[in-house]
């Protein structure tokens, strides 16, 4: 009955629709329809997406299909191939994790102070996921744009779900605005391709012969449009506003999956549809990617809201993915096919990795939020004692995102470094020196990311509790732990068996650039050798075994047979009376970095000291506040906003409020159009 992966996708789409339909019933008195019914269908939907993607990728199957729907001359084309299969695996995994996590998490909205109507949450979650599933199998621009818009619009309603806070409404509006600007630019890109290809289907676009100028215009539109969705600098401003205010499992899907759809679009349009990449494009992508990664992490360091911090890290990681893509384009454009393949693999690997650990971290932040209602890092502390399992999973996410061996983040960054090091193969001296410099900035990014996650984990989970609510927190429910555990396990597996993963990814590059990376896996599953064994190699299983060995030997020779440790007060310089308020805060932690890189942010620092009157003034109260602002907001968006308002004011005079005037306008417009047409 099920003959090909497309059928599995149809099942997944059906389950998603059912999930949305069931949540309609989840009115106030019957929340269980959402908690069990809706998420159960999402579970099946995720499993089916995963299975379909795995089938397409492992068996290297490409299947197409068409539906005669909508306008009579515009059939809907769908297709599943290894590239969409890869992204379906990513999406399916996250949907699975979220469907485990969601039932407990959404109880929050069914009772207590944060009560919200449940049906919209279920319906828009389903539409959001449906949008992503649909655009991944779209094989013409029409279907793609329909599902793309469905994803964007459903996302808007999810961001604004807790609409009582004005900040959430503002964030959602900004999201909607930029999503539409992006969608318009994507439409232009498809327009260019469709004009040359003579039709809207991707097949026609693929065979279209574009002049270099028009290809560049098509590339630029696709890059800007999809980049807006991915949150690259300087089009990122919506991301740190919108992602943190959505419910946490939605944040996980947004940062994990939605912004990856931008990457999917880029890869699909640039590598698959346009085809002949030029190295100059790669240079642009590399520069934007480097800027995104460095600025993303520097802004993240200044955040003290945990979810906002994570959102800024998405910008950083999109930057790293773009660096990989940019290098792939540079190498492909200069005729180095194998090295281009390496860059592409590095970028796609990082896409998958980022989806996993970012979703894990957002779910972890959600668990903390669920139990403590604390957004701010400076209100947390000591959660490792209260929520040990959550803490462990969150730590896995932190280690993975900080690109430390033996987890998955390290593998993809290492591959990106290896790609950069092959720049000696290029003839162009400028490229030869730019690429390593970009790689050095990637190293800076990695080190700063580690600093940021030492801060995030250290302030939130270690030390002593800073508020009473945090002190009394309990471990998250089993379902939530299950969702996180699944992702944490995958983070480890993808880190320890990179050669296997790259072998599985071979059909993607085979399809896009007609090359695979046989050297990477030539030495078996134990060794990862991207170029050759002589040039570079890495063996993650060895690393894992060695660390376990040290633990084992340490237990045998050092710990075994010794007395249990005596507990005592920490060192307090002999003054005594250490309180939790004396601990480092997140602001204090990042102060040295704020000082070293000053100028990257607009920092407003205020110290309000209140002195008692009298001849010997003594400070009675002291208040310190620091705010960091994004320069791109002040330099790009505020002027544009002013311009729009000023223009609106100018045009305002035609708004008389008189119905006759408006009828006259309509009449004149109609006449002008008739004149143009005739």
């Amino acid at each position, binding site marked *: 009955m099920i003959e090909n992966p497309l059928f599995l996708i149809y099942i997944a789409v059906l389950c998603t629709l059912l999930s949305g339909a069931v949540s309609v019933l989840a009115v106030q008195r019957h929340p269980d329809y959402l908690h069990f019914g809706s998420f159960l269908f999402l579970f099946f939907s995720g499993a089916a997406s995963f299975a379909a993607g795995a089938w397409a990728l492992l068996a290297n199957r490409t299947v197409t299909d068409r539906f005669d729907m909508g306008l009579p001359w515009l059939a809907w084309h769908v297709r599943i191939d290894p590239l969409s299969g890869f992204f379906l695996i990513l999406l399916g995994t996250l949907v699975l994790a979220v469907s485990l996590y969601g039932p407990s998490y959404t109880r929050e909205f069914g009772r207590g102070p944060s009560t919200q109507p449940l049906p919209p949450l279920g319906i828009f979650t389903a539409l959001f996921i449906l949008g992503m599933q649909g655009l991944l199998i779209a094989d013409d621009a029409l279907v793609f744009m329909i599902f793309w818009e469905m994803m964007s619009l459903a996302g808007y309603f999810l961001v604004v779900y807790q609409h009582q806070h004005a900040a959430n409404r503002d964030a959602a509006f900004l999201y909607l605005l930029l999503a539409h600007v992006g969608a318009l630019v994507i439409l232009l890109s498809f327009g260019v391709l469709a004009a040359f290809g003579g039709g809207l289907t991707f097949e026609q676009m693929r065979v279209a012969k574009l002049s270099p100028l028009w290809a560049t215009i098509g590339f630029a539109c696709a890059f800007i449009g999809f980049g807006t969705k991915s949150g690259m600098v300087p089009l990122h401003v919506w991301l740190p506003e919108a992602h943190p205010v959505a419910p946490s499992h939605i944040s996980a899907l947004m940062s994990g999956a939605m912004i990856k759809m931008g990457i999917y679009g880029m890869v699909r349009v640039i590598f698959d549809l346009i085809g002949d990449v030029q190295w100059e494009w790669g240079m642009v992508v590399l520069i934007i990617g480097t800027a995104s990664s460095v600025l993303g992490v520097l802004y993240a360091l200044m955040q003290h809201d945990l979810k906002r911090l994570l959102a800024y890290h998405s910008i950083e990681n999109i930057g790293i993915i773009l660096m990989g893509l940019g290098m792939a384009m540079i190498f492909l454009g200069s005729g180095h096919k194998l090295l281009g393949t390496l860059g592409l693999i590095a970028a796609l690997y990082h896409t998958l990795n980022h989806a996993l650990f970012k979703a894990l971290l957002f779910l972890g932040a959600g668990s903390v939020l669920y139990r403590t209602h604390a957004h701010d890092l400076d209100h947390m502390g*000591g959660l490792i*004692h209260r929520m040990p399992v959550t803490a462990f999973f969150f730590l896995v996410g932190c*280690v993975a995102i*900080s*690109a*430390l*061996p033996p987890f998955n983040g*390290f593998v993809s960054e*290492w591959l990106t*470094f290896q790609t950069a*090091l092959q720049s000696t193969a290029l003839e162009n*001296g400028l490229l030869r*020196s730019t690429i*390593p410099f970009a*790689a*050095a900035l990637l*190293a800076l990014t*990695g*080190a*700063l990311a*580690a*600093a940021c996650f*030492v*801060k995030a984990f*250290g*302030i939130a989970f*270690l*030390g*002593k509790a800073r508020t009473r609510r945090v002190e009394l927190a309990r471990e998250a429910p089993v379902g939530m732990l299950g969702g996180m555990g699944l992702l944490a396990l995958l983070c480890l597996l993808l880190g320890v068996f990179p050669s296997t993963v790259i072998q599985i990814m071979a059909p993607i590059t085979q399809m896009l650039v007609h090359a695979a990376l046989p050297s990477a896996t030539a030495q078996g599953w134990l060794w990862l050798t991207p170029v050759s064994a*002589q*040039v*570079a*190699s*890495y*063996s993650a299983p060895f*690393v894992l075994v060695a*660390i376990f*060995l*040290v*633990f084992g030997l*340490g237990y045998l020779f*050092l710990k075994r047979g*010794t*007395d*249990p440790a*005596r*507990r*005592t007060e*920490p*060192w*307090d310089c002999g003054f005594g009376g*250490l309180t*939790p308020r*004396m*601990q*480092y805060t997140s602001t204090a932690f990042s102060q*040295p*970095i704020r*000082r*070293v890189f000053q100028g990257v942010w607009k920092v407003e620092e205020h110290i309000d000291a209140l002195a008692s009157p009298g001849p010997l003034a003594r400070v009675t109260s002291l208040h310190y506040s620091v705010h960091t602002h994004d320069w791109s907001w002040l330099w790009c968006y505020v002027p544009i906003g002013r311009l729009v308002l000023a223009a609106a004011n100018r045009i305002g005079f035609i708004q008389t409020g008189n119905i006759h005037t408006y009828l006259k306008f309509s009449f004149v417009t109609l006449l002008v159009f008739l004149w143009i047409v005739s």
Partner: protein
Amino acid sequence: MDSQLIAWAFAALQTLAFIAAAPLLAGWLQRVKCHMQNRAGPSVWQPYRDLSKLVGKKMVLAHNASWLFRATPYIVFGAMLLAATVVPFIVVQVPTAAIADVIVLVGFFALARFFTALAGLDIGTAFGGMGASREMMVSALAEPAMLMVVFTLSMTAHTTNLSVATDYILEAGLLLRPSFVFALLALAMVAVAEASRIPVDNPATHLELTMLHEAMILEYGGRHLALIEWASQIKLMIYSVLIIDFAFPWGIADQFSVRALALGVVAVTAKLMLLAVVLVVWETVLAKMRLFRVPQFLGFAFMLSVLAMLTHVMLEGAN
């Protein structure tokens, strides 16, 4: 297959020798330093006595210490052990070098630092936080410079495998490459910062405001402290051996004959002793700098490493 086995066995032995010799280097450093400063120094074996004393002590932990605090010393030691396995020490062909190339080596250091900083924050005292915050700042600046040095080396040698790279330098003979001079200077500055030496940090101090690394590990005692101390001695040794391998690898054994090995041991010992004297002179004539001067120091190291890379691309691009 047999020669493979011998090579692996030798690599394991070499690693054991490496970690066993690390405290000796620290002892020698201490002794020469005392001599230089007209003090009566302890014996060169003192670090071994300290370590064994610490291992024998009963454990004392702060109330708030979590499992992470207890696990960190093992993770840190494991990372340093792994790092030590991939560095050519006595013999140049180490098959273990394939486990991790030089970028992974930097990753091991980052792993150790990440957990040390977390352990610093675990107890919930201001010292730990201060140490963690400062250490992460210093490392964020040191890591790009280190990577640029590594890139320069690996672009010349066309590999990031340390064993192959050292072999390449050995084969190339005494060739003065301007890029290597800059890279070596940058590497030395990074090494000073990363190994917590003067002028970036002072390993001997216990004055709270001047410490970086020591502030993070202030709460450790007993076998935990022993492991961490030993790990930092290994780290210093790794940086020293890296400098030796990059700049003056001559004398290192390139075959498994007794004569070559004996020569290798003598050569590396002599070079390490000499390098320690240079470090002592450097530490004696310089004072520890203010924390916010450190970015300038490391920024200079980064500029040197960029210069090295550009020199390589411009002048030595042909080979």
